[in-house]
């Protein structure tokens, strides 16, 4: 299309009055992208660019000595990009500014100049290079549509495919490749930045300014993967708030979603309009008490039935922490969903219903309070805050509170929670007492002066993030994103990932490349262990990935097998476990049919010594080593090597019968 238009003679003003009708250029491309995300979002025009690889740079020649606002913004953005592009090169700001101005904001040239000579002496060749890029292409034909826009905006330059000078070869190949890719990526996104009207075009550039730019010394490590993963992590995350993932668990109808919905409202995470809408709508279907739960229960089915079915997700900030809540379903049938949620959590929030009779049903055998608590403990959640909810229904009775605390304390101790890792908070989700502010009701003030819920949450300590280990990512969800490729969502168990990294999908062992990384709907260049990230994968069909797959580092692939030995702890089971027992194996988000093929030995619960070899059966509360055969190969790790991926859960007929740690992987042959 573009090449058939007479670009030189276009009357741009006319043309772009109604720019919406430009072919293949969605309105969304211009409007709905937040400026800070823009550079990471797939740009439709990028793919078109690849056809014009030989297209030369288009330089704006009119140079102004005094910097306009636009130029300042551009300068900042250039510096930021250069900083990100270059490795550990140290350069003073003054020098950098000089170089940028000298090369007229041409990032490529500046980078070249810096790379070529650490003393920043200008090199003849670069100047030549620059000269070449300054010459406007005499032939206009291969210029794509957006050139029109470029010309209208006065100050930005566009660089398309280019070749790095060979001198750069002294850089390690990986860095070089990344640099190159990075530049292309960023630069290609420029046309979008100058979205049609020049006025809009300016703002994104200035938005990219980051506070670090004002520092005298510019030094940002382009992550060199293995060596300084930890350093990079500290650098990127050290200053900000710690990010915690908190799973909310408890018996069905304990009020988990409502409590969380209310909390989010109080924190101002949900705008009033939406809340009003929920209130009206829930009133309409006669479920007004569910209005807060609707914040997290979004699917129609969930709202109609008034129960959470899949893990709801929302994030908020406390004084010192950034918390993402995973609102798990409490209903027995949805425990598989709850497991996949809890597998991604760092800490837990156990909600119990204080209403007479309700707590007992939830806590007694068959209730989910026990099962959930045991599950999260076995899934590696060590810190738990217990919320005694709905205390308003028992008129904030201290006796009731104490009674429940007493019962839960002894149970949680048995389950293996350390006493100082468990806190108890009384509150009421629906009325919002003691959520983010100290309680106001006199009845509770009489006896309670502990922290409110948000303070208790703030007190959680975040676990160590194993960033130095090889990259592992468990897939929790697969969906079509915008643009090409598809997205996988899940948790980075260990290691870190950069945009452009290659990953291997196990057990299928297909390879793919990471195109974008999103955390909480914000684009990131890098993500670390513990993050819940959405990765866009390219070079792979969506059918080839399924939930429960593990993405891993191509150089350090994860073992794949369908047979392994595990040390299991049997929970209370109605019938004993024998060999040949078929179970459903939960491993992170994966649920797969499996058979316990051998009972190898029964262990003493406390000492871990072998009590009996080849036991005939395992009864409840026993400890044993068994061999498990899964119906098809899965990706797994020894518990000793990777705690996150070395845990399994065994379930039968809707109850969890055992939790296990993988002790030996038996190769498939």
């Amino acid at each position, binding site marked *: 299309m573009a090449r058939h238009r007479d670009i030189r003679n276009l009357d741009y003003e006319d043309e772009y009055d109604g720019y919406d009708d430009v072919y293949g250029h969605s309105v969304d491309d211009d409007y709905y992208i937040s400026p800070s995300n823009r550079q990471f979002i797939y740009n439709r025009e990028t793919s078109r660019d690849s056809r014009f690889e030989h297209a030369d740079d288009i330089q704006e020649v009119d140079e102004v000595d005094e910097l306009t606002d636009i130029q300042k913004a551009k300068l900042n953005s250039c510096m930021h990009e250069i900083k990100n592009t270059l490795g550990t090169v140290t350069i003073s700001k003054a020098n950098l500014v000089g170089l940028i101005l000298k090369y007229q904001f041409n990032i490529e040239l500046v980078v070249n100049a810096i790379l070529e000579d650490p003393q920043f002496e200008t090199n003849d060749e670069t100047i030549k290079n620059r000269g070449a890029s300054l010459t406007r292409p005499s032939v206009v034909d291969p210029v794509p549509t957006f050139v029109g826009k470029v010309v209208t905006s006065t100050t930005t330059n566009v660089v398309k495919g280019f070749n790095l000078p060979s001198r750069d070869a002294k850089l390690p190949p990986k860095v070089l490749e990344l640099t190159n890719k990075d530049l292309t990526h960023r630069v290609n996104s420029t046309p979008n930045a100058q979205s049609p009207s020049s006025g809009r075009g300016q703002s994104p550039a200035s938005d990219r300014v980051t506070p670090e730019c004002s520092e005298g010394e510019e030094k940002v490590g382009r992550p060199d993967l293995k060596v300084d993963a930890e350093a990079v992590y500290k650098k990127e995350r050290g200053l900000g708030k710690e990010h915690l993932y908190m799973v909310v668990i408890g018996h069905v109808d304990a009020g988990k979603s409502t409590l969380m919905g209310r909390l989010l409202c109080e924190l101002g995470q949900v705008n009033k309009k939406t809340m009003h809408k929920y209130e009206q709508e829930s009133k309409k279907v006669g479920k007004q008490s569910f209005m807060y739960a609707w914040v997290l229960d979004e699917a129609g089915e969930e709202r109609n039935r008034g129960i959470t079915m899949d893990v709801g997700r929302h994030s908020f900030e406390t004084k010192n922490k950034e918390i993402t809540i995973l609102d798990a379903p409490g209903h027995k049938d949805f425990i598989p969903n709850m497991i996949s949620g809890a597998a991604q959590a760092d800490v837990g929030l156990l909600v119990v219903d204080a209403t007479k009779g309700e707590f007992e049903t939830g806590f007694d055998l068959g209730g989910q309070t026990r099962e959930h608590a045991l599950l999260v403990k076995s899934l590696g959640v060590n810190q738990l805050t217990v919320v005694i909810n709905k205390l308003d229904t028992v008129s904030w009775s201290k006796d009731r509170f104490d009674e429940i605390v007493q019962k839960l304390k002894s149970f949680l101790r048995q389950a293996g929670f350390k006493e100082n890792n468990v806190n108890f908070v009384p509150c009421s989700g629906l009325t919002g007492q003691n959520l983010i502010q100290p309680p106001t009701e006199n009845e509770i003030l009489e006896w309670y002066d502990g922290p409110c819920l948000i303070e208790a949450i703030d007190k959680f300590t975040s676990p160590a993030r194993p960033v130095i280990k090889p990259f592992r990512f468990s897939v929790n969800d697969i*969906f079509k994103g915008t643009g090409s490729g598809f997205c996988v969502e899940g948790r980075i168990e260990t290691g870190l990932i950069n945009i452009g990294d290659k990953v291997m999908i196990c057990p299928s062992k297909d390879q793919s490349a990471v195109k974008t990384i999103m955390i909480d709907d914000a684009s990131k260049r890098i993500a670390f262990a513990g993050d819940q990230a959405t990765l866009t994968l390219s070079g792979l069909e969506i059918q080839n990935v399924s939930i429960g797959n593990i993405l891993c580092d191509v150089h350090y692939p994860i073992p794949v097998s369908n047979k392994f030995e595990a040390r299991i702890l049997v929970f209370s089971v109605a019938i004993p476990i024998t060999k040949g027992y078929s179970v459903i194996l939960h491993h992170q988000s994966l649920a797969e049919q499996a058979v316990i093929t051998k009972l190898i030995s029964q262990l003493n619960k406390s000492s871990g010594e072998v009590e009996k070899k080849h036991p005939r059966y395992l009864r409840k509360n026993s400890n044993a080593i068994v061999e498990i055969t899964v119906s098809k190969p899965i990706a797994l790790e020894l518990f000793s090597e990777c705690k996150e991926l070395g845990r399994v859960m065994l379930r039968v007929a809707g109850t969890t019968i055992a939790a296990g740690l993988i002790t030996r992987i038996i190769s498939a042959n």
Partner: protein
Amino acid sequence: MKLVHRDIDKGQGAVTLVPEEPEDMWHAYNLIAEGDSVKSSTIRKVQIESATGSSTSSRVRTTLTITVETIDFDTQACMLRLKGRNIEENQHVKMGAYHTLDLELNRKFSLRKVEWDSIALERIEQACDPTKSADVAAVIMQEGLAHVCLITSSMTLIRAKIDVTIPRKRKGLVQQHEKGLAKFYEQVMQAILRHVNFDVVKCVLVASPGFVRDQFFDYMLQAAVKTDNKLLLDNKTKFMLVHASSGFKHSLKEVLQDAAVMSKICDTKAASEVKALQQFYAVLQAEPAKAFYGKGHVQRANEAQAIESLLISDRLFRCDDVKQRKEYVALVDAVREAGGEVRMFSSMHLSGEQLEQLTGIAAILRFPMPELEEEEEDEAEQE
């Protein structure tokens, strides 16, 4: 299966049978052992050399008798294929020539055994039992995973497995989840239409955790109304929604234990097997000294005449080792003689599969035998 002719005397002789439905092939498979001779009509390609030396080949239908060397059973197509040497020469086929017989429905075959044991005779009886139990179709599903199976009295056949990934609900992307779900339901519905013959099937069980079954049923009816699918609308009453804990195949066990299902499908073998195995586990939990599995333990319990009920997989009788089969037959006979109950599990059922994992043989005893527990199970180590 129809028994046309029976001539068995003192454990020797032959029977003539006519298989009438696919399941009869399964019975035949369990009946025929290596070394038996089978006579049946078959098609054979015959080459005829004319006087001038040119040869033409033609396919002729002829009746052959072979001694069986290998037996092949295709569970999906319910085909039984017997390979062996010809032992009765005729004009087309020489003595000792190899031939593979495909047993066909509604075509009689005669089977001669050197020795008919009680198990084999019982099998004939069972196969020819005219009281038919209901054929049941079952759909076990959870979000993104469904199995469509047919349950006959001695077989559970997985006809279709649907495994798709459904995007989870997420902020502002609920449609993708719902679209994925609708697509999944559509696939399940198509599988039902393709694999379930509503003329034969008395009942279709739709089992799932949560509300998947209700949602699916609603979807199916709506779709049937939309496309004016008479078949589904007419058979609406045959569908039965029950609870299952997951969409994996072994959840079928739970479904068959469901009281409502039990009453509807009466006593299929599948359901009674599940019950028996469950009972074994219950005893093992309550009184471990009264429940044993593994050949060694069971045989010693038998020696003490302690066996109240014996659970045994029919696979054990299909083994090619004649001596081993004899051992098992002797065990079954002994238990019966001592007044015990013997339950033969079909290895095509889920419970049978599980029993097979459990060495294929298990017993509930009349009285506890704690001394057996002391002994190490050697067989476990052999595996």
